[in-house]
C-alpha cells in the first residue's frame, strides 16, 4: 500500500460519491448516502483504515487528501440537500394553493339595535360637555308627568299628549321623558347637567311616522347663569356631531314646562337646505324641542327660580336615527325584522 494507491482510492471514492449525491432524488436517499460515505462505518473510514500501512512521512499527506475528499462530499451533500428540500417544499406549497378569491369563514354576525345605539351616540356627545345619565320610571305618576311640569289636570295643553292610563290610580305610562327633570332636580343640587333617555308611551295609532311606544332623550342644565345662548351653543355642537357641519336655527315653540320655548331646526339632511319633500320644501328639519325651564317647574324641583335658571330639551330617538340612517318607516324599530337589524352589523 502506498500513498499513490491510497489517494487514488480516495479520489475514486469522491468521484463516486459526488456522482451518487448528484443523482439522488429524495432526502431519505441523501441521508443514506451520508451514512454510506461519511458514517463511522462508512466508506471513507474504511479507506482510511489502510493509512497505518503507509510510511509515517506519507500519513499527513493522505490525511490532507482524506480531509479534502470528506469536505467535498459534505459540501455536495449540503448543496444537494438544500436543492432537494427546496424541491419538496415547492411541491408542497404548489399542492396547497387555494383560490384566494373565495370568501372567508364568517366570524360572528351579531348586531346592536339602532335605538340604544343612537341613545349612546347622543349620550357620547353631551357626555363630553359634562352631562351625566339618569333614568326615571316608565310607569309614572300623573303628578310628575304632568302637574309638576306645569300641566294642570284640565290644562288645554294636555291635548298635546294623548295618554295611556293604567289600572293603578294616579299612574300612567309616561308620555315623555320630561318628568325626569323633576326627579333629577329633586335628587341633586345645581350645577345640574343631566341626560335622561328612555321609553315613552302615547295613545297614538301606528303608522309609518307614529307609534304608541317610542324613545326620547331629555336634557336638563340648571345653574345660576345658564341661558338660551348656552342651549344654542350646545345644540349646535350636537347637530354638528350627529349630522356634520350645517346651519341651525331656533324658532318659537310651545311647551308648558319651558318659557321661552323653542324648536331647534337643522338644515335639511336630505337636500342641504334647497327644499325637498323630506323637509316640506322649507329646507329645514326640526330635530328637537327645547326652552328655558319654567319657574314653576324649578319650584317643583325644589330650586329657587329667582336664583337659578336653566334649559331643558327633548328629542325623539327614532327621529334622530331616521335622519342618520335614512330609515323609511318607524315601525321597523320595534318589529325586529332581522333584514333590518342586520344592516347595522
Amino acid at each position, binding site marked *: 500500500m502506498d500513498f499513490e494507491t491510497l489517494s487514488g482510492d480516495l479520489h475514486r471514492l469522491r468521484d463516486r460519491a459526488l456522482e451518487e449525491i448528484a443523482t439522488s432524488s429524495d432526502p431519505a436517499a441523501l441521508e443514506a448516502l451520508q451514512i454510506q460515505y461519511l458514517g463511522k462505518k462508512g466508506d471513507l473510514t474504511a479507506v482510511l483504515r489502510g493509512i497505518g500501512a503507509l510510511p509515517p512521512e506519507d500519513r499527513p499527506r493522505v490525511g490532507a487528501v482524506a480531509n479534502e475528499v470528506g469536505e467535498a462530499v459534505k459540501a455536495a451533500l449540503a448543496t444537494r440537500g438544500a436543492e432537494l428540500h427546496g424541491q419538496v417544499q415547492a411541491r408542497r406549497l404548489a399542492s396547497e394553493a387555494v383560490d384566494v378569491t373565495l370568501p372567508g369563514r364568517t366570524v*360572528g*354576525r*351579531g*348586531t*346592536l*339595535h339602532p335605538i*340604544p345605539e343612537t341613545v*349612546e351616540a347622543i*349620550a357620547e356627545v353631551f*357626555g363630553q360637555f*359634562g352631562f*351625566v345619565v339618569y333614568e326615571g320610571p*316608565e*310607569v309614572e305618576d300623573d303628578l310628575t308627568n304632568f302637574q309638576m311640569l306645569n300641566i294642570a289636570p*284640565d290644562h*288645554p*295643553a294636555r*291635548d298635546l299628549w294623548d295618554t*295611556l292610563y*293604567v289600572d*293603578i*290610580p294616579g*299612574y300612567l305610562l309616561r308620555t315623555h321623558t320630561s318628568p325626569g327633570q323633576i326627579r333629577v332636580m329633586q335628587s*341633586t343640587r345645581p350645577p*345640574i*347637567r*343631566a341626560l335622561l333617555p328612555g*321609553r315613552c*308611551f302615547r*295613545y*297614538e295609532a301606528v303608522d309609518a311616522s307614529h307609534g*304608541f*311606544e317610542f324613545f326620547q332623550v331629555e336634557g336638563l342644565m340648571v345653574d345660576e*347663569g*345658564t341661558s*338660551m*345662548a*348656552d342651549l*344654542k*351653543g350646545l345644540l349646535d355642537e350636537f347637530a354638528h356631531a350627529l349630522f356634520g357641519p350645517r346651519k341651525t*336655527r*331656533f*324658532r*318659537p*315653540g*310651545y311647551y308648558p314646562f319651558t*318659557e321661552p320655548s*323653542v324648536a331647534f331646526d337643522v338644515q335639511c339632511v336630505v337636500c342641504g337646505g334647497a327644499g325637498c319633500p323630506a323637509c*316640506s320644501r*322649507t329646507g329645514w328639519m326640526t330635530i328637537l324641542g327645547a326652552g328655558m325651564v*319654567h*319657574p*314653576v317647574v324649578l*319650584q317643583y324641583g325644589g330650586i329657587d*327660580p*329667582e336664583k337659578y335658571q336653566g334649559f331643558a330639551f327633548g328629542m325623539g330617538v327614532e327621529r334622530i336615527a331616521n335622519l342618520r340612517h335614512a330609515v323609511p318607516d318607524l315601525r321597523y324599530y320595534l318589529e*325586529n325584522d*332581522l333584514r333590518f*337589524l*342586520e344592516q347595522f352589523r
Partner: protein
Amino acid sequence: MRVPLSWLRDYVDIQQTPEQLAERLTLLGMEVQGLEQWGADWRSVVVGELLTVEKHPRADRLHLTTVNIGSGEPLHIVCGANNIAPGQRVPVALPGAVLPGDRRIERTEKMGIASEGMLCSGDELHITSDAEGILILPPETTLGVQLSDLYGDVVLDVDVKPNRGDALCLIGLAREVAAATGATVRWPDIAVREGDDPVSAHLRVEVREPELCTRFVGRWISGVKIGPSPDRIQMRLQAAGMRPVSNVVDASNYVMLELGKPTHTFNGAAVRDGTIIVRRATPGESLETLDHVQRELTPDTLIIADPHGPIGIAGVMGGADSEIADDTTDIAIESAIFDPVSIRRTGHRYALRSEASLRFEKGQEFQLARIAADRVAQLTLAWSGGVCARGRIDTAPDEPAAARLAFRPARVRKLSGAEVSAPEQRDLLRRVGVETEENGASVQIQVAVAPQPLRVDAGEEEVLVAVVPTWRRDLAIEADVAEEVARVRGYETTPAHLPDTLMPAYRPSPLAVRNMLRSTLAGAGLSEVVTHALVAPESEPRLRWPSDDDLTGVETPESGSLITVTNPLSSQHSVMRRHLAASLIDVLALNERQGRGDVAIFEVGKGYGRVDGRSREWTRLGILLSGNAQPPSWNRADRQYDLDDAKGIVELLAKRLGLPAPVYRADDRGFPFHPGRALVATSIADHEAVVGRVAELHPDVLEQRDLRSQRVIVAELAIRGLDAGVPARVHVEPIPRFPEVERDLAVVVGEAVDAATVSATISRNAGELLRGLRLFDLYRGAPLAASEKSLAYRLVFGARARTLTEAEVDEAVARVQAGLKSELGANLRS
C-alpha cells in the same frame, strides 16, 4: 286653523308672497304647516252665460241649454236644475274638468241628446253648500274666466299653540302678521242698527253659576228670514273648513272665525217664557243635542235652560229643539264667557268637542262677549233681515282694565343670553301691542304664579312695566315677557356659546354595565332587539313562564300582578309585560314568517308589575337561540343551536362581570320547558350576580305558536348592574412562577349523578392545591354499562411559592378518588 288669505287681507295689508308670509309667521311662533291652493279643482270650470233654456223633449226634469263661454260656438248642455234662466252667468265645467271628489266631466248623452259639459251647483264645486240649484254668479262676472282665477285663494294651515287661544281667529292672526311686518290691524266696523223695543221685552237671563259663567251677553232679533248666506260668505266659510248652514248659523260661525269668540243663536220661540237660565243640570235631566243624540246630563254639567228645562249644553252644543229652523223668525243670541275647565271637562264627558268648545277651553277675552254679540247681530241683520231689539242683556258689564306686569330688562337679557337693550325691548313689545312704562319706585316682580306664587323685590334693578293687552291672557310672569321679547326679535338671532359655568360632580353612567354586556353579546354573534313593553293579555298566561319564586340572589324579583292599560289602543298591546321571553318568541315568529329560521337575539328590557298599589320595574336580559349556530358554508359544517350555546353565553357573561363560573341546577317542571333540558343558572359574588333560567322550549310551545324551528333555546337572566352599576374591576392573580402539574381522571358514574355533583366532589376533596378543573370528555358505550357514563376531567395542581412534589399530587388525587368512590360510588378509569 285654516286661514284663507283673501279673508285675512280684510284686517291687515300683506305685501309678502304667501311663502314669505308663511316663513315670517313660522319664525314668530305661528307655525304654518301647509299652504293650500284653494280652488285648484276648478280648472276647466269657466264662467258662461245662459243663452237659451228649454224643456228636454223626453224628460220633464231636464233642460236643454245653450251657453256662451265667451269664445267659440255656444255649448249645448243638458241640465237638471230648476233655478236657471236665460241671461244668468253660471259656472260651466268643460269636458276634461275634474271636480272635487275626483268627479270627471265628459261629453255625454242624456236621454238621446248630447251634453258638452255640465252646469255646476255650489255644492259640486265645494264653494257653497247649495246642492239644489246651479250657482248663479254676479251679472258683472267676465265670461270665459276660469273659476279658479275668480275665486281661487291660498289657505294657510296655521298650528296655533294651546297657550295662544287669542290667535285662533283671523283678527288674532292679523295681529301676528302686523307684528311680523309692521303693518296695522284694521278692525271691522261693528255697529248694530237697533229697533225701538228694548231687549228686556223679549229676553231675561239669569246666571245661577257666576263662577262658571262669568259673563252672559244676550241680544234679540225679531223677524229674520232664514235662507242661505251670501255666496261670498259661504265661499269664505268653505275655504276656512266650515260648512255653511244658514244665514243665522253662518253669522255665528263667521264671528267665531273672525274674532275667536264662539256664540250661539237659539230659536227665540223655543226659549220658553223668554227666559234663559244658566245653571248646572239636575239629576235625571236629559237633552237631545244638535247632533240628534239624546244625552243624560250629569249634575256637574253647565247647561243653558229655560224655565221648563235644558235647551243647550253651555259652550259645547245646543239642543235640537231650539235649533234654528227654516221657519224661525225670532232669535236669541248668546255670547258668554264660560269657565275653561268646566267646558273642557264637559267636552270630554260627552265626547263632544267642537270648534266652539276648543276656543272656550283656552279662555276668552272678557270684552269679546260684548263685541261678538254686536257683531253677530250686525251680520244677522245684514244677511237675514229683521229688527234688533234695543240694548243688550249683560250680566257683567264692567270690563277689566289691562293688567300690568313688571319686568327687569336685565333678567330678560340673562334668560335669552342676548344683548337686548331696554329701549329695544320696549320697541319689540310695542309690535305685539304691549306698551311699556318706566317705573320710578321699586316694585315687585312676579317670578311665578300658582301653585307657588313668587314675588320678589326688584331692589335697585331697572324695572319696566308692561301693559298687557286684554287678549293676551298668556302673559302672567316675567319669563313670559322675556319670551315675547325673544319671539318678536326672532329666535334665529339667539347667540350661541358653550357654557362656562361649573360642571356637576362625577356620576357613573347607569348604562355602563348594560352597554358592556350588549357589546359582548353582539360580539358573540347575537343580534339585539327592542320589543314592545305593552303586550297582549294572553301573552304571559299562554306561555306560563315561571315566576322568580325559586330563584335566589335576584335583586329585584319579578313580582306583583300585571299592570293593565285602561284605555288601550288595541287588545294586542294592553298589558305591561313582566317577562321578555314571549316578546322574543314573537320576534322569532315574525322572522320565520319572512323565511328566516336562524335567529340568535337578545334584549335588555324591562319587566313591570304592580305591588301594593304601586308599580315596580326591573331590568332583565333575554336571550333566544334557534336554527343554525353556524350557517352551512363551503368551508365549515353547519351546527344547530342547543342548550350548551346558551350556557356558554351565560358563562361568558359571568366572566365579563368577574363572577365565578355559574352553577347549574336542573328544572324538570316541564311546560313551557323541555323537562330534561331546563335549568337555573346561578353565579353570585359580593357585588355582582347573574341568576336566571336557561331552557329549551317544550315542543308544545312551538306547536302552539306555529313555529317551524325544531329547537328553541330561551334564557332570561337577572343581572345585578343592568339597572345601574359599575363594571367589575379585575383583580390580577400573579402568574405562577413554579410549574403546575396536570392529572387526568376518568370518572364512571351512574346516569343519575350529574356533572355538577361530580365536579363539586372533586373540588371539595382535592384541597387547596387544585388550581384548575376542566371537563374534556363525556363518554357512553362499551365497555360501560348502559346506565353508566364516563366523565373525563383534567385537574391542574400548583402552589404559589414552591414546586409541588409528586407525592403531594398523588396524595391529593388519591383523596379525590376516595371521595368520588365513597360519595358517588364512582369507578375510576385511567
